[in-house]
């Protein structure tokens, strides 16, 4: 049985990911080494406390952004 996939744009690149994937799973899926990332979904910030409930849909644009705290 093959897993259904959807296509999203991640950091500007087309990627196939499992259907109904949540943000926390997406972070794991791409083995994001740095857990200190801001997640942006369709130009909107995603709050970390919703990572396990926000589901990514086909055609969504997702960005992992490393925040900057130097001065």
């Amino acid at each position, binding site marked *: 049985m093959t897993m259904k996939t959807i296509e999203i744009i991640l950091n500007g690149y087309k990627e196939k990911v499992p259907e109904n994937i949540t943000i926390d799973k997406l972070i794991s899926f791409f083995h994001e080494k740095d857990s*200190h990332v*801001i997640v942006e979904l369709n130009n909107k*910030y995603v709050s970390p406390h919703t990572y396990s409930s926000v589901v990514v849909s086909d055609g969504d644009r997702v*960005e992992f*952004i490393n925040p900057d705290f130097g*001065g």
Partner: protein
Amino acid sequence: MKVSAGNPSCAVLLQSELRRYNRQIIIPNIGKRGQRRIKKARVFVAGAGGLGSISAYYLTAAGIGYMRIVDKDRVKEENLNRQIIHWTDDIGKRKVDSAKKKLQRLNPLCTVDAVYDDIKDDTVIDLVGDCHLIVDATDNITTRRILNRASLIKAIPYIFGGVDGFNGMVTTFMPGETPCFECIFSTFVERKRLIGVIGPLPGLIASIQTLEAIKLILGMEDTLKGRLLFFSGIDMKLKEIRIERNDTCPVCSVYRKREM
């Protein structure tokens, strides 16, 4: 929420000020009334490093009436690639003293209050005093958390900026209106690593912060409220992320309950 900079009609502009600030007074959004607001404004600049070098300089040049700049660090050689208010012969001096010396020479009409001190939980309220807004020029998350709380307690804007490598980010947190620093960054922890910074990045980010400060003082709309600007100098792209209040924010939700 509007920045209260007192009654602008009370601040009389001297002939020397009309000459000095002419190129901004002739801007319709500013005029003499706006310049009086700038003269009446009191701004807290947290840090005299890469970001603070720029924001303190432009605020002073613009004619801010009073600026308190706080830092407890001394100038090091490795600061000089980006902290342009400090020069080679300042190495070893207190950053706030080095900054004040330049700022007073730049504009003796402004009052610069240089404080050599750490910004801590138990000192921040007194340090911010009766300033109308906070410009973040720090280099760590811990101090930013402290500034955020001061902003919420005093109900004054907190203009956040940060840089790393070729990248930088900036937004304005307005108590009661927008997310606070913790709404966005509560899960982030301090890291013990040296952050590399190319000089123009703090120049760019602090310039945007200063523009925000001046716009807030002037009462202008369309600031960065609810928008996090992220600049990548690698691919020269500017990104805007919409940010919203977090109802479960461990910090500002407490102040919201107090307001109700």
